[in-house]
């Protein structure tokens, strides 16, 4: 069966897999950061990603601000929305069963997605590529913009990881994750840190959204469809494990691409099959780390 698969097709699908994997990695990372500190599964993550793409589209079409401007502005705008959400919705629920946090963010996702769809319809809106053209690698054509997505998401993931693992701020974060009262006793404002972390995670989601706008179309359902995969990624990688989320994100993107080449019918399902096997054989996640993963 391998003979009739051309190298172009394989390379093309692997590139798509790598692009998808980049988004999975960035989104799962944000989800893992939020979960790690707040124990809240941010179901609105997909909707916030979609909002990032929409804000970029609005900035371009109404204010004439181009992609590079949107890359900075849209995450800030959406992160502010995230801060408001945290204050109004998550704060009142923080001492309750964490399932309420999941359900509350789910409602936020429903409302946001519904409002956007009501306003702009369900069909996708096109967003022009800021880096047209590409380079011929001999066996395949590599569009510049896709190369940018791969490199920039790698840099973002690596940067965030370094920030959390190797800076003072990151050590506060990790400490607050383990023993919030103790960290507060040292004079650190943990509630404010929680709020800002949520904002940061939401900003990351919006950043991925802006990056996704030229690749996929900007549509209200783009968030919920990616959200489904992200959930599986986080379960497979081990909840709250940042590095696990990132690696699993890339891995599953690749795997999806490969499946598209060899057995296209199963491409949508492969992620979930992997998840089920991971649950049976590595119940704490492939990259299980903290005690919270149980």
């Amino acid at each position: 069966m391998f003979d009739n698969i051309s190298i172009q097709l394989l390379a093309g699908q692997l590139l798509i897999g790598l692009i998808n994997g980049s988004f999975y990695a960035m989104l799962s990372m944000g989800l893992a950061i939020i979960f790690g500190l707040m124990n809240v599964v941010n179901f609105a993550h997909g909707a916030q990603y979609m909002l990032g793409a929409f804000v970029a589209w609005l900035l371009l079409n109404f204010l004439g601000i181009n992609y590079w401007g949107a890359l900075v502005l849209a995450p800030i705008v959406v992160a502010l929305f995230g801060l408001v959400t945290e204050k109004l919705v998550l704060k009142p629920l923080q001492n309750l069963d964490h399932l309420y946090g999941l359900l509350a963010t789910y409602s936020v996702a429903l409302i946001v997605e519904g409002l956007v769809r009501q306003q702009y319809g369900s069909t996708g809106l096109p967003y022009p590529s800021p880096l047209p053209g590409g380079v011929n690698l001999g066996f395949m054509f590599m569009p510049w913009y896709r190369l940018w997505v791969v490199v920039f998401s790698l840099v973002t993931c690596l940067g965030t990881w370094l920030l959390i693992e190797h800076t003072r701020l990151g050590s506060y974060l990790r400490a607050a994750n383990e023993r919030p009262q103790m960290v507060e006793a040292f004079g650190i404002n943990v509630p404010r840190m929680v709020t800002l972390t949520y904002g940061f995670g939401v900003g990351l989601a919006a950043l991925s959204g802006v990056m996704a706008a030229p690749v996929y179309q900007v549509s209200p359902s783009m968030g919920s469809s990616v959200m489904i995969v992200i959930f599986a990624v986080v379960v497979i990688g081990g909840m709250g494990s940042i590095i696990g989320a990132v690696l699993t994100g890339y891995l599953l993107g690749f795997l999806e691409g490969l499946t598209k080449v060899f057995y296209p019918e199963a491409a949508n399902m492969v992620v979930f099959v992997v998840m089920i096997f991971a649950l049976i054989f590595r119940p704490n996640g492939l990259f299980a780390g903290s005690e919270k993963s149980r």
Partner: protein
Amino acid sequence: MTRIVLLAALAAAMIAAPFFVYPVLLMTVLCFVLFASSFNLLLGYAGLLCFGHAMFFGTAAYVTGWLLKTTGLSIELGILAGGLFAAAMGLVVGLVSVRRSGIQFAMITFAIAQFVYFVLLQAPFTGGEDGMQGIPRSALFGVIDLSGSLVFYYFVLGVTALMIWLFWRIVHSPFGEVLKAIRDNEARVESLGFRPERFKLLALTLSAGMAGVAGGLKATVFQFATLTDVSWNISGEVILMTLLGGIGTLTGPMVGAGVIIWLNDHLAQFGEWALISQGAILLLVIIFFRRGLVGELSALLRRRKTGR
């Protein structure tokens, strides 16, 4: 005594209802009353939040529909088969997921439900995006004709009443008591010599089977089954119904189902506003009245009683 009077009044109201309200709307409410109760069995009594309950509901709708379409099976056997199939699914899902609790269980069931969705999207017998149409309302027991819409309403009412009675029996059995104990303090139940995982597994199987009966019933009411029945919107809707009515109260989810179906029916013409208002209601319930309509009401009544 008051309970018997209330039950009799409810029964009379349900029997008279199709003369005042459009029967299909009533039957939809009944299917979702059943579906929401099955969800309540899991969340309200076992403390497990299944975020993909539509997989049992929707799959059973397809199974029942397919059996009624392709074989000469009588309607009650078709629905029963849908329920049994869903129960078997519940058992399998439980085997991978039941050792997790809380958020993990929710996320895993959510992802498995999506897997089921994609399987059904591509399975040859479901009709893919178009759905399965023309599901017949075969004769009850092979002899009683159900083609009239009023007759069919009483059939749906009968099945629902039977299942709700079963639900009531389960919840008030020793098994139900152990479930509630697990929900409140799992470690203590384990120390008493019970094995919580087995109880949860059985609860999930029963709940899935009940959701399956609801799905099979719905397939015969609308005479079609679609991917919407398996989608996570339905999984979310049943959560909303249960929370709005009141988790862990016997009647709450039923009230919730009625309110939401009624609301959907009225908001259907306003496009996206149906979903937006569902989100808004869920958010308000979660933040301001987590006991739900029935829970808050009974708390109010209790406070009055003790106040005097």
